């Protein structure tokens, strides 16, 4: 017995982590998957009910709005974060004075919770006392800014706050990528007569392909999971105009007590994340194995 323990000690030490993750991650996902095929309401039922919940889900107006919003949010969030991130990274890479201070400023939102971010932006975007008043005070007398309470525009306020929170992080990823490039490449380009714009556009940015990929995965992942920010900023409103899948899932489960339907929406989210993550993990592992 003692001999066995000694020999298998590493595996024994590994057991708690593996056990916990098997149960709490994989077991739970399977449970959710199973429940999504049942007609569970407030309490889980275990008779299978087929794809009923999925049909119901995709027929639900609220879910369709949530998916629409997710697509809009993801697209804008990606574009703005990456564009701002690259610009800041490239500009910071020019031997800028006070680079450290600027970097700290760009990245600090990442240390704040989405609830804090949401609370702050909710106040700033407040249609009476917020930005609108600021601009009127500055002399733009007819300035109106009511996106937060405007059904059509409210989703963009979430983009503004989300980009504010995450763009600095993308900047950090790109800056690290740029700094890891050998300076001989830049020297070679200088001797070849490339100007700064050409150096970046033709040589360095194409070399950032892995960083683009990582940023894409990170940002899509953040946007699929977006929950806190919406709760703090709009609670899905006005009406249901800013609902997103994560919010739909919790509301359906805990306010509407439609456990089966909620499980189906959770599985849709899971599949969306998996579609992004699995290729990413695959390529990361392959890269690690090559090097």
């Amino acid at each position, binding site marked *: 017995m003692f001999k066995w323990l000694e020999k298998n000690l590493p595996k024994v030490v590994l057991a708690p982590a593996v056990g916990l993750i098997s149960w709490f991650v994989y077991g739970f996902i399977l449970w959710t998957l199973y429940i999504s095929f049942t007609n569970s309401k407030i309490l889980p039922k275990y008779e299978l009910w087929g794809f009923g919940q999925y049909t119901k889900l995709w027929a639900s107006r609220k879910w369709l709005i949530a998916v629409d919003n997710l697509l809009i949010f993801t697209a804008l969030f990606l574009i703005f974060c990456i564009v701002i991130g690259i610009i800041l990274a490239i500009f910071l890479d020019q031997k800028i004075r006070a680079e450290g201070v600027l970097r700290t400023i760009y990245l600090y939102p990442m240390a704040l919770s989405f609830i804090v971010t949401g609370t702050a932006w909710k106040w700033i975007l407040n249609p009476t006392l917020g930005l609108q008043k600021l601009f009127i005070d500055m002399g733009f007398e007819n300035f109106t800014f009511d996106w937060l309470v405007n059904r059509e525009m409210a989703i963009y306020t979430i983009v503004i706050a989300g980009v504010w929170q995450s763009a600095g992080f993308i900047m950090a990823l790109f800056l690290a990528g740029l700094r890891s490039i*050998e300076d*001989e*490449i830049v*020297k*070679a*380009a*200088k*001797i*070849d*007569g*490339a*100007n700064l714009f*050409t150096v970046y556009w*033709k*040589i360095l940015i*194409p*070399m950032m*392909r892995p960083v683009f990929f990582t940023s894409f995965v990170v940002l899509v992942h953040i946007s699929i999971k977006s929950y806190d920010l919406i709760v703090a900023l709009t609670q899905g409103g006005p009406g249901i105009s800013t609902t997103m899948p994560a919010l739909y899932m919790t509301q359906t489960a805990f306010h509407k007590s439609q456990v089966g339907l909620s499980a189906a929406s959770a599985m849709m989210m899971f599949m969306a994340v998996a579609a992004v993550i699995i290729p990413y993990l695959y390529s990361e592992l392959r890269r690690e194995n090559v090097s």
Partner: protein
Amino acid sequence: MITLKVQDLSKNFGSTEVLKKINLEIEEGNFLVLLGPSGCGKSTLLNIIAGLETIDEGTVFIDDYNVSEVEPKDRNIAMVFQSYALYPSMNVKENMVFGLKQSKTSKEKIEEQLKKVSSFLHVDELLNRKPSQLSGGQRQRVAIGRALVREPRIFLFDEPLSNLDAKLRVEMRREIKKLHQTLKTTVVYVTHDQTEAMSLGTNIAIMNHGVIQQYDTPENIYNKPNNTFVADFIGSPSMNLINGQLAKEANNVSFIPEGSNQSGKVSLNNYNFVKSPQESGNDIYFGIRPEHIHYKKTNDTDFEVNLRADLKEYVGHEQIITFNYYSQEILGKFPSTVKIETGQEMKLFFDLSQISVFDKKTNKRI
């Protein structure tokens, strides 16, 4: 004609002086090697010549024009880097013509140059490959090709062979030599490898601590090192520097090894002193290369000694023996066919026509 001239060049990084009043001139068509240990300033000097590093003091001239403030691209130079620095996102062809495209060269001219250079370097087959699909030697060729297509006045090489394995390094070294022989373009080449320096250079500048220790032909660097640093740096194993004193009586000058009590006097009458009158009793180094200690007499002037072999290192074609010479360790190099037993005394001959003598205080050749 002087192609490159460096005048009173100084460079500091913060408070560290990397280059101290460097002066250097190179004739058209010569192959200058900057040689020295890492951190001696040789790469900084090369970067300054290329215009990639700013100058604190002094001037760089290319063809008599002061280029100190001129952009790298306008200096009419090309450079090959240690990491090759090929642009990973471009294929071989795009890499090679990138510089020409930047300078708005006509399409026909670009094609012509590309064809000429790629066949010259045997990379025509590789033109559509990405750098990541090339072997080390192929990358090296492409990097050289990228420099060649620009037809520069000066080629700059920054340790181009140090990322290659030993066998390939020797091959590429030969190719670079051939290249220079064919093109006769001026070259400045940085390396820390003395074999590379000796075999490639028409001139070598040995650097240490930001100062040029000696600027000379390879032969002079080997035979007449200016100071103990150069003597020690060149040659493998390094030159033996034997401690002792200078003795002068009447017309005879000789070297007395430390601990020998006059008995081991070595005559320096045939040695070419830099400045002849030397004071008796001065501490000096008697420098002799391991390969100039022979096991049989070759010249009349050879100096005979009996020394005990303490250690034998067999390295294939030759063997390196450590001897005890008045309690100082000296090394000798012999063909491995010579039979030598450790612990036994053997008769040896110092070739006095090949020695160097240094002042111990200044470390300079006397």
